[in-house]
């Protein structure tokens, strides 16, 4: 059935009446169905960033080591020796709720393509995951599917999954977040961009065939969920990691030649966005002949082919005298290869199918007149400071509860399903250090990689929370000894048409910008995911916690100098940074009192930088055996994590300071590091000389005398008890019947 193209259909496609009027003005006539489809996906929130663009421009994106910032498929930074790290993080939230396995799997596939399309061999994957409350009956199924999906795809393509983060919160019950990050390595003189060039050059399609899957996925990702979410299952794509692996190898092999003029993966909005963006960036026109597109199904229409989000496909512009070389490589890898078009000087995208022109759109206006909204913002009311808070359970019980809580418990159950060693370059595996460390094959260079965000801080104070997310990523890289270089951001928020959500967005971005500037830590790539909210049958909506996930990348000249967080025997444990006992929005407050209250801990970016630069210098000098930043759960949780990782006890000796013990041990003051060193006194003298607060907290157990964690009060918590509490949550939650054994 052929629908008439009118305002009603435009509305179904997600275009507002004003946007549709603009389409009519650009076209000078009613658009065809295919044309309307192209406008609607290119102008969707997902592809056009129409609500977020104005704010994103305020983020710092340059530094001497930045080679390509936002605007390319991924960000590119100089890591030395003529090499570049290419990285980006991207969300696949909506699909992962509808179909967790495929949603997460194709999220990994998509971000991998963004990186290898630029000429980089992917060397590491990370992810940032947010799930609903463990008490929600749907959560277990979603966690299971997402973890299997990430593993199923990443393990098969042979890229190690080396790090990430996971939070649980009821705000994600109907809208989990799956943010996937890929890091790749390329020679700086072999980086491939997407701007098409060369009138008459062939446009080539490679990879999987096009099917009807994922049609209008980008539009779906640009609307909130309602009770019919499950009916949207057909808009979720299905991934084939085997084809992706072949595509990686074939593309990298072709990139050894001089055949490629421009290349881009077909991600959201598939053939439409790749062809429009490539031609648009190159200021050329493009003619596409859809009869030549490799197809998986019979009878596909132009509309379906242009909107399909079938996975594992790439679009390239080749030198005309090199198409045979390219074809031979793709045939070797048993992948489809088809010349489906030509670059023209018309400035139009012209789509032909079965002898008819199905679309003819001027590319300039399509890009330049894309909607840009300055949506109204409403500030989040600041939280009243937290008054005095009692300690109803005591230090020991609170510690055991915290290390066993869903947000702090061991993630081994997840990591054990991800291949973290393939490639043979993983220096620090998940959980071994504050950031994962991967060596660049054939060099001594180490990359430090992390993902970070504390959404409850952002919800309470978006500006502080945005700054904190960036600062924590910087701190986690620093704690390994790495020099932080740049970030990729994945900004997950609710419905931007709500002023309070847009206010969160604006404030979080301004906090991020402030931290990026203060820490010389620019944004080089990123992704925005809006409309992360669910509409209940009664019409009310639930937004996610604002979650600007940060993917940080740092570099070590010599990967061997990286330090982990595992405590070793016979060392002094020294705390760098001020402890004010800030319990607002702390994990302790939530787990012990069941409250999410008060303001988040303040972020002092000047102190942050001073502390971090000091710690990094000490690590570089070889003085530090282990280092861990203090974050969720505060000081005592951080100490317990070091002790558990190293299976080494520690005796704490901290004189009463007048501060309530629970505030001292569980407050989440920022800018703090724990360093395990041979000579604590020397370290403290050096810190004081640099104007930095430092104090010795205790001494790790002597070799062979594993005493557990001895508190200043003399109470001892055995490591076995901590480890048991730490290990319990995931296996009991996810595999309650226990692992299947024969």
């Amino acid at each position, binding site marked *: 059935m052929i629908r008439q193209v009118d305002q009603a259909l435009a509305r179904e496609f997600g275009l507002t009446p004003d946007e549709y009027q603009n389409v009519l003005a650009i076209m000078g006539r009613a658009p065809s169905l295919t044309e309307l489809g192209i406008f609607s996906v290119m102008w969707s929130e997902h592809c056009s960033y129409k609500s977020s663009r104005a704010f994103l421009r305020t983020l710092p994106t340059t530094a001497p080591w930045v080679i390509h910032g936002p605007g390319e498929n991924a960000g590119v930074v100089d890591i030395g020796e003529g090499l570049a790290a290419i990285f980006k993080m991207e969300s696949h939230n909506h699909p992962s709720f509808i179909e967790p396995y495929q949603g997460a799997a194709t999220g990994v596939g998509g971000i991998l393509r963004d990186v290898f399309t630029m000429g980089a061999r992917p060397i590491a994957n990370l992810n940032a995951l947010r799930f609903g409350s463990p008490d929600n009956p749907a959560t277990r199924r979603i966690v299971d599917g997402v973890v299997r999906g990430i593993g199923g795809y990443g393990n098969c393509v042979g890229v190690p999954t080396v790090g990430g983060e996971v939070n649980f919160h009821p705000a994600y019950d109907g809208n989990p977040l799956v943010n996937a990050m890929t890091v790749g390595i390329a020679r700086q003189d072999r980086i491939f961009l997407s701007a098409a060039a060369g009138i008459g050059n062939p446009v080539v399609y490679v990879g999987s065939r096009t099917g009807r899957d994922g049609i209008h996925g980008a539009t779906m990702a640009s609307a909130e969920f309602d009770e019919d979410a499950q009916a949207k299952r057909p808009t979720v794509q299905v991934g*084939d*990691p085997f084809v992706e*692996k*072949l595509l990686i190898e074939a593309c990298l092999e072709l990139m050894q030649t001089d055949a490629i003029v421009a290349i881009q993966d077909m991600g959201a909005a598939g053939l439409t966005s790749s062809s429009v963006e490539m031609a648009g960036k190159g200021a050329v026109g493009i003619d596409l002949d859809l009869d030549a597109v490799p197809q998986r199904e019979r009878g596909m229409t132009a509309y379906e082919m242009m909107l399909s989000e079938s996975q594992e496909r790439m679009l390239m512009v080749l030198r005309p005298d090199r198409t045979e070389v390219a074809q031979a490589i793709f045939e070797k890898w048993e992948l489809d290869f088809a010349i489906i078009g030509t670059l023209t000087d018309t400035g139009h995208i012209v789509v032909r199918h079965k002898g008819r022109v199905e679309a003819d759109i001027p590319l300039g206006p399509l890009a330049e007149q894309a909607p840009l909204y300055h949506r109204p913002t409403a500030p989040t009311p600041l939280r009243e400071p937290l008054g005095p808070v009692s300690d109803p359970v005591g230090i020991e019980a609170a510690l055991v509860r915290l290390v066993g809580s869903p947000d702090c418990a061991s993630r081994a159950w997840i990591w054990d399903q*991800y291949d973290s060693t393939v490639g043979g370059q993983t220096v620090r595996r998940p959980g071994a250090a504050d950031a994962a460390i991967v060596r660049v*094959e054939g060099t001594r260079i180490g990359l430090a990689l992390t993902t970070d965000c504390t959404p409850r801080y952002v919800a309470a104070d978006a500006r502080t929370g945005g700054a904190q997310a960036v600062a924590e990523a910087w701190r986690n890289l620093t704690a390994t000894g790495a020099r932080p270089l740049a970030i990729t951001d994945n900004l997950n928020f609710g419905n931007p048409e709500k002023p309070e959500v847009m206010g969160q967005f604006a404030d979080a971005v301004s906090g991020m910008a402030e931290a990026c500037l203060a820490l010389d830590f620019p944004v080089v790539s990123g992704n925005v995911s809006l409309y992360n909210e669910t509409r209940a049958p009664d019409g009310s909506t639930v937004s996610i916690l604002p979650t600007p996930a940060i993917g940080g990348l740092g570099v070590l000249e010599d990967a061997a100098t990286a330090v982990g967080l595992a405590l070793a025997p016979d060392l002094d444990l020294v705390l760098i940074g001020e402890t004010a006992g800030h319990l607002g929005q702390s994990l302790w407050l939530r787990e012990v009192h069941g409250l999410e209250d008060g303001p988040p801990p303040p972020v002092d970016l000047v102190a942050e930088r001073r502390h971090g630069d000091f710690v990094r210098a000490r690590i570089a000098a070889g003085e530090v055996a282990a280092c861990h930043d203090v974050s969720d759960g505060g000081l005592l949780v951080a100490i317990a994590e070091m002790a558990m990782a190293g299976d080494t006890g520690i005796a704490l000796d901290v004189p009463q300071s007048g501060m309530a013990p629970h505030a001292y041990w569980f407050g989440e003051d920022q800018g703090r590091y724990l360093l395990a060193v041979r000579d604590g006194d020397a370290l403290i003298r050096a810190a004081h000389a640099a104007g930095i607060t430092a104090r010795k907290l205790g001494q790790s157990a002597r070799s062979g005398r594993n005493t557990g964690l001895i508190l200043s009060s003399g109470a001892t918590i055995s490591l076995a008890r901590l480890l048991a509490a730490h290990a319990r949550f995931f296996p009991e939650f996810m595999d309650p019947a226990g692992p*299947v054994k024969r």
Partner: protein
Amino acid sequence: MRAGIVVFPGTNRERDMAIALQGATGTQAVMLWHRDTVLPALDLVVLPGGFSHGDYLRCGAMAAHSPIMTAVRSFAEAGGHVLGVCNGFQILTEAGLLPGALLRNAGLRFLSHDCHLRVEREGTAFTRGWSAGDVFRAPLAHGDGNYVADRETLERLDGDGLVAFRYSDAAGRVDAGTNPNGSAGNIAGVFSRNLRVLGLMPHPEDLVDPLMGGIDGKPLFDGLVQALAA
């Protein structure tokens, strides 16, 4: 020692293997393509890990019918040494070069962590770097590592000393508690009758550098060089 590494579509640990071999031999291994029909002059053929043909149909089933496998079979029949790791082990069982089969892990989840392996047979080209009873560490990373064979075969493997490695703890204890994937008798690796074909699930090639957490896997490669150096 001249080593060749077979690359199938979907192989993904060929570079890990090449690095480990280069560390032992000082020379680069030859990469072989699955469509090749003739092997160059080699002392060792390695089938590395990965997901050949996407593990579709059955792990290793399609790769076992690749053109190159005819040449690999002839090479083995002529007394050549063949090492199959993870997917390579699966391919060797599918090709009939090793007995048994590898099913889904008993826990039905992909597993990726370090395991301990107890050396069951010393003195072969693959295990001369160890003594029987030695324990070493190796990363495992598989969804289908659950070794099965009929009782007769298992008895023969035991009786003829064709079990190469068993999953154990650090002290060499072998029991249900040290069995990660449900493998019969905790078997992690087996030899062919002539002891010249070895298949194992874990990845010694990913533990040959102190920076990556240890060199427990090195004796396999150093031993091969000693045994096979021309």
